[in-house]
């Protein structure tokens, strides 16, 4: 009788253990998904700010028509992109163009004194920061999740239920994808 009870208890504990490990894997995976959507939200925020920005600076930056056009084009490409690869390509072009924009702004003291532009600039700075921080958080969460998939004993459960590793949000060309520095 006693061996049977012991066996049952051990089996019960094992089941509880497996369930909790499975749940923790699911939780980690959801956190990764949530972090990814946060990046998305912030990229959209940047898209929303750009028309407003162009409208504000158009009157001042008469010599930079080409740059402004590039920004607009990169934005619409990023918004229309279908695949992840296309999208990240367009977003990185947009980041590059914005980086140039921040450099050029230095030559327009009138623009820098414009109240409207100042508040837009704060929003843009914050958006670039948010994209950076969202990416940072995403990568942290991916690492936690991947660690869990690779490490014993959770790797056994991960293999049984087909949890797949997630990719880091990498920057192909660091120079291009780097968050542009904003000068005040």
């Amino acid at each position, binding site marked *: 009788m006693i061996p049977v009870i012991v066996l049952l208890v051990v089996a019960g504990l094992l089941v509880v253990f497996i369930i909790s490990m499975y749940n923790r894997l699911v939780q980690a995976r959801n956190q990764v998904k949530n972090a990814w959507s946060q990046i998305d939200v912030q990229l959209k925020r940047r898209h929303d700010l750009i028309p407003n920005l162009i409208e504000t600076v158009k009157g001042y930056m008469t010599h930079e028509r080409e740059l402004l056009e590039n920004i607009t084009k990169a934005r619409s490409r990023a918004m229309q992109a279908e695949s992840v690869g296309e999208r990240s390509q367009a977003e990185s072009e947009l980041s590059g163009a914005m980086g140039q924009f921040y450099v050029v702004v230095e030559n327009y003291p009138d623009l820098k004194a414009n109240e409207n532009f100042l508040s837009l600039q704060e929003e843009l700075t914050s958006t670039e920061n948010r994209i950076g*921080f969202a990416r*940072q958080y995403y990568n942290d969460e991916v690492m936690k999740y991947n660690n869990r998939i690779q490490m014993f004993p959770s790797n056994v459960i991960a293999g049984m239920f087909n949890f797949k590793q997630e990719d880091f949000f990498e920057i192909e060309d660091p120079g291009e994808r780097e968050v542009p*520095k904003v000068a005040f």
Partner: protein
Amino acid sequence: MFLVFLMALLLVTLGYVVGEAMGRGGGYVGLLIAVAIWTILGLVAYFQGHQVALRSAGAKKIQKEDHPRLYNIVEEMTIASGLGKIPEVYVIDSPALNAFAAGRNPDNAVVAVTAGLLRRLNRDQLQGVIAHEIAHIKNRDILFMTLMGVMAGAIVIFCETMLRVFFYSSAGRMSSGPPRGGGGGGRGGGHPIMMIAAVVLIILAPILSRLLYLASSRKREYLADATAAVYTRYPEGLASALEAIKRDVQPMNQVNSAVAPMFIKNPLQKVSARGLFSTHPPLDDRIGILRSMGGAASFNAYQEAWKKVGGKRAGALPASALAGDQDAGVREASPLAQDKAEARHQSREAGDALRKANNFLFLACVCGLRVKIPPDFKKKEIECPRCHRNVAVPLAQMAAAGVVADAVSGKKGGGLIQQAKERGKKGKKDR
């Protein structure tokens, strides 16, 4: 966690020993009383703690329009920390440089900063401070410190009550002749050894509990600093903010000592204190550690820097923070040219944030100046200070806003600003 355990042990021992001293078998009654005091205090602190902190500091809630930069930074740090909800943002009407976080869990969290901080810190520095506060929220330090504070408070209340009970019962015994029986036996009071132990504990426990409380408070500060460095990937931001905070010597008078550990720097101490009786580690040490992280923004780098600066072998951070840590580089500074115009703009922004929170009305004059009108203004027109034209004041609109403001805050908003201005003027004269 070890410190929490010690504190709980102290509380339970105290209850038992004192109870036993009052009469044999009374140990469990004493224990029950001690735990009951703890529970009641705990519930109050859990549900009302952040309200008490905000009210005692005179904090005003602001919206995004009131101070976009502060609000944006709070949102950025919310993203970096992965908190589910953006904390409410409050501004404290004080020229001192300080900030705190409160709230029992991430869903009910608030972050408050002083107007002085908004005026004097640049974006990176402010980000460092907010990251530190968000770290307190994310690490659940507020709950932790409330728990510790409540236990320390329960111990103090229990000891004071018991001291009185002792006094009266022994006085009563002397006057009424034969002692009344305690829990057991014919003699009143408990075992003599228990009596002595109880007296010693009653005297020592409040001091001990205070020390335990402060020790854990200091540890959480280190952890919050490390977490802030990881969130911002920029330890220098917080380090230079702490340096600015160190230079600032204005104490915040209106702060209740119970909420002092929640602030980034103890608002009640004028100089950065060192040793067992301070709520925070010395600012110099905190700055030194952040600056010795050697180009890495990780918990391990902080731990190494802590050992180097403190010259100790044991670390300050809990193992849970170090596990799953990853090495990350430090980002570059945002190049901020802090010229005079910029500083003036920033100072105006900080003042406007407070005025908006206090229901001031902003009127645009034809000359471009924005005239700021306090909510209790009664005249129909006001002279523009720059061009001396008369600007019409929409009193009806103000009355409507004023009614709402009174209903919310229960008092007129104009007073605070006026006080701040007077204080500012006085400070300038003193210097």
